[in-house]
């Protein structure tokens, strides 16, 4: 597991008041957005009984555990325990958190729990972006990158010439003519990953048909990558008992 910034969700798909469970290298995270529009990336674990917070619910500026209703504020501090309504909750009761940031229309987490100030994410904000989708693939992030660095940018609005590709640790850019798509890769486990796909351009140009085209392009890439993964027997999903 490499320490670094990893994508965990598309920013627009994470609506206010929404929480969702996800993983980085097999470790469980909860990603949620409060009523003030700020997103949070925490360990998916209520310190009380270890219940996953992603099973809980968001109300205003706190997230509550489904099990006993313990409520955590946006700094991950427990503020209210329904069974002990009079109690001033000790400061030691808090959820472990990951540093997080929204950039390029994507929510990113730095995978070091309760760490010191993380290094800069390494690329500037660009806006506006047109979100496409998060696509979950039954193959390792390495296999996804193998396919992405050979992929063609799908033709959108400003078609022109060969695909120019560049990548960082977690992000691939595919450019052709005036069109560019960005694919951020989230390693879920050794055999699963998620692609968070955005078009680097404004929604008034790219929403609708271009989104559909990029989405279909992503599905084709998923088929290709999973076909290769299946071929080498990488896929081994099991249903939990």
């Amino acid at each position: 597991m490499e320490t670094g910034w990893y994508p965990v969700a598309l920013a627009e798909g994470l609506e206010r008041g929404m929480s969702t469970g996800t993983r980085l290298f097999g470790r469980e995270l909860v990603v949620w957005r409060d009523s003030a529009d700020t997103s949070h990336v925490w360990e998916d674990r209520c310190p009380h009984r270890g219940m996953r917070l992603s099973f809980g619910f968001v109300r205003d500026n706190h997230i509550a555990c489904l099990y006993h209703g313990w409520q955590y504020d946006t700094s991950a501090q427990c503020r209210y325990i329904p069974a002990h309504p009079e109690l001033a909750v000790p400061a030691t009761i808090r959820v472990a958190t990951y540093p997080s940031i929204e950039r390029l229309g994507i929510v990113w987490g730095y995978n070091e729990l309760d760490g010191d100030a993380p290094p800069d994410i390494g690329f500037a904000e660009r806006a506006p972006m047109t979100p496409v989708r998060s696509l979950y693939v039954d193959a390792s992030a390495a296999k996804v990158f193998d396919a992405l660095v050979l992929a063609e940018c799908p033709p959108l609005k400003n078609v022109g010439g060969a695909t120019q590709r560049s990548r960082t640790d977690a992000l691939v850019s595919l450019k052709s003519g005036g069109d560019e798509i960005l694919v951020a890769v989230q390693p879920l486990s050794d055999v699963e990953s998620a692609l968070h796909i955005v078009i680097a351009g404004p929604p008034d140009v790219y929403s609708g048909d271009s989104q559909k085209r990029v989405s279909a392009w992503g599905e084709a890439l998923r088929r290709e990558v999973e076909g290769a993964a299946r071929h080498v027997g990488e896929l081994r999903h099991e249903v939990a008992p």
Partner: protein
Amino acid sequence: MSEITLYDFELDENCYKVRLLLSVLGLSYRKVAVNVVPGREHLAPALMALNPRGSLPILTNSEFVLSEAEAIMIYLARAYDNGNAWLPTDPKAHGLVAMWLQFAGRDLHAAFLARRLAMFDASGDEVALGFAARSAFRLMEDHMTAREFDRAAWFVGDNPSLADLALFPAIALSRDFGIEHEAYPALRRWMRRVRAIPGFVTMPGIPDYY
């Protein structure tokens, strides 16, 4: 006077489909609780006489007897939804709803069996059922993703239909058999919309709070 009776097992997602529709239609009905686990009452002579398939739900309305959740939903919509909101009369929309109802009964049957296996120790191939259920959920996810690009909120048309009610239980209960909602962001948003339908009710395994 007609009296609707539902032979029901509280933990069964197919019975839940019918309870959901009865609730959003605001219909009053008599509920007969059938002890499926561990009692196996659904296979006892009284219920086998109503439905030789030995499955739930069964709905009766005076002398009329009907089984299979999707068929019951179609009947209730035609009989009691005068505005045809839940089963559109437009031929294309009707066809699309019928397709998703078939999907709910066939493709999502793997999810039903996986849940039976996980919760009630029924027999089956856990890995194969889990894979088949995930494949069906992925098709639903891809569909709702494409729908969102058209700014559409429901499986068919501009309003919720029987398709949404029939497809909801399997994915909403998928954690019962070890499939998280992580990989289905479009379905997560859609499930929040389904929960906001007036008359929506939950069942065990679907939390009241979300």
